[in-house]
């Protein structure tokens, strides 16, 4: 029996975009989006406008993460409001274009939902990435997806950290969702990773269609991993790494890391231990693109988020 006062009435989600190629060498999303641009039958849903879109065509063409700067860090207020000028980095130009097409970020004209498709070299499995702990629509969608893919699993990463949160491509939309699947090397297309991503998106679109048709989703809880800290590699005075992720930590994304556990192994064979006071849950362990961002892995803590029942608002 649900109290009618605890149902959140939310606006219909009419316009949905699916971004691939925000990073030009993360192949699952690029392949899916190109496929759906050619033939959109699989992603069509009643009453929904669904736009598959390649975020960074030049990077995709060169099969490189970015041309001048990381597009998935480029959607800052400064960049989005910068005047059009010669010599702007490619990704800043692109961010402004994407903001015009799918935003403006923060306005009522913005797209309702953007799924941004990524791959990682880390052993993260399928991971849905949220930027807010209070976006009920997203929480309910994530809950729906997790139930739908069971017994397969999907982790949920929440990045609401004031310093570590970054201005993503998807942040242009009212409800941004990141979908990160790994492990997959950059420039490689693995069939299992591709199909996992495809299945998750199918369920996500089903949810949106159901929501728009008036279905009420009861209150739920979502287990999430909340971003705590970025851990860098040990480095020398020139900034070069002096150790690697320890074999005992490698591939152990989402598993507890306790004080005294091995964390890094130096090139000459010395083990460096994790000294933190509390148990943490590392993720993005040994992601290729993060060496230059001074990150060997991220620590997270486990949390349970609660979401009210939701229903489409009546007109």
């Amino acid at each position, binding site marked *: 029996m649900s109290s009618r006062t605890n149902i959140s009435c939310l606006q219909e989600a009419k316009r949905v975009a699916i971004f691939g190629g925000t990073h030009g060498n993360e192949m699952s999303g690029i392949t899916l989006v190109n496929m759906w641009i050619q033939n959109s039958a699989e992603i069509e849903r009643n009453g929904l406008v669904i736009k598959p879109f390649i975020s960074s065509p030049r990077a995709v063409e060169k099969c490189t993460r970015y041309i001048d700067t990381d597009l998935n860090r480029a959607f800052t207020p400064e960049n989005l409001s910068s005047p059009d000028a010669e010599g702007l980095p490619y990704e800043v130009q692109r961010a402004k274009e994407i903001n015009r097409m799918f935003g403006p970020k923060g306005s009522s004209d913005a797209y309702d939902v953007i799924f941004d498709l990524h791959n990682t*070299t880390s052993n993260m499995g399928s991971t849905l990435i949220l930027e807010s702990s209070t976006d009920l629509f997203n929480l309910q969608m994530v809950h729906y997806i997790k139930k739908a893919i069971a017994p397969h699993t999907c982790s949920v990463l929440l990045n609401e950290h004031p310093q570590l949160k970054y201005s993503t491509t998807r942040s242009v939309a009212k409800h941004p969702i990141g979908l990160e699947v790994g492990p*997959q090397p950059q*420039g*490689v297309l693995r*069939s*299992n990773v591709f199909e996992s991503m495809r299945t998750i998106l199918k369920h996500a679109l089903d949810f949106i269609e159901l929501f728009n048709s008036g279905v009420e989703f009861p209150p739920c809880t979502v287990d999430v991993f909340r971003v705590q800290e970025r851990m860098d590699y040990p480095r020398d005075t020139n900034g070069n790494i002096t150790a*690697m992720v320890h074999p005992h930590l*490698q591939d152990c994304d989402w598993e507890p890391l306790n004080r005294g556990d091995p964390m890094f192994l130096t*090139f*000459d064979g010395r083990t460096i231990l994790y000294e933190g006071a509390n148990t943490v849950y590392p993720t993005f362990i040994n992601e290729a693109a993060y060496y230059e961002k001074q990150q060997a892995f991220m620590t997270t803590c486990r949390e349970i988020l609660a979401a009210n029942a939701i229903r489409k608002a009546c007109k």
Partner: protein
Amino acid sequence: MYLIGSGQQDDPGLEDEMALAFLPALARMAVCGGTHGNELSGVYVVQEMERQQKEKGEGAWPIPVTTVLSNPRAVKECRRYIDTDMNRCFNRATLSSPITESSPYEVRRAQELNNLLGPKGSTDATDMICDLHNTTSNMGLTLIHYTSSDWVSLHICRYLQTKITKVPVRVLVLDFPINDAYNLESVSKHGFTLEIGPQPHGVVRADIYIIMKEAVDLTIDWIHKFNSGTVFEGGDVEAFKFIKSVDYPRDPEARTLTASIHPQLQDRDFCLLKQGDPLFFTFSGKTVKYEEEETLHPFFINEAAYYEKGIAFHLAKKLTLTIPAVQVQKD
């Protein structure tokens, strides 16, 4: 019966299993990393060896070892190459091409390395090059040599096979004539590419680094033992010989991929591929099968760098090479 030979397969008397071949000592060795700038195990093994050399001087290793960062510009940018794949630049034509303003960076660098470690084919060439590579394919440790007739390299391969047990250790021969051999290891008299995977490009995995370091140390160990007079017994070496490449299914006009490596083939490098076995899984859900009658062995399955070369995997035939016992030639 004793032979004094050059170490080549076509020397007389090989049929006699008791034959012992006397070969010259290996005086100079080079360990090369970063031939592809984003294959990081080799970059860090070379870096660590340089640090050890600074720390211990002459005593770092029992034989003189030169460490080389083959493609420093590509390493700095963590890219496979700047202008062109350097590990395709060591054939005679490229090594002797005139350098102009517009010559690719890697062609210049290849000629520099040929001067430093070669010249290829001459008596001045370094005795052993160990060129360190990574692959995104699940190839374990694969020792690649351009020829099947170099007994020293095959002996070292066998030695590594007995000593390294954590991952499969296999031998791959290309059988190119020396002038056509295009990879860096063909510059030296003996040598091989040490290819270890799976590792994503741009990543260094500790488990892979450890194996690569061990393989280099064991190679140095073998050379030292050989130079000191140890007799290494002959016998059979199982090897794989490159036959041909297979590309992905592609759209006939756009040339874009229409399938990926089938999940039942993914990560199964060097397995037995029989007629009817799955090769590719199309994006529309169909399985593309291996149609040929000849049973072959796929390798370099789903290597990131080979998409642009139109290669989904290579195919090899398994064969047995016979090598004589070897001992260092006394002066």
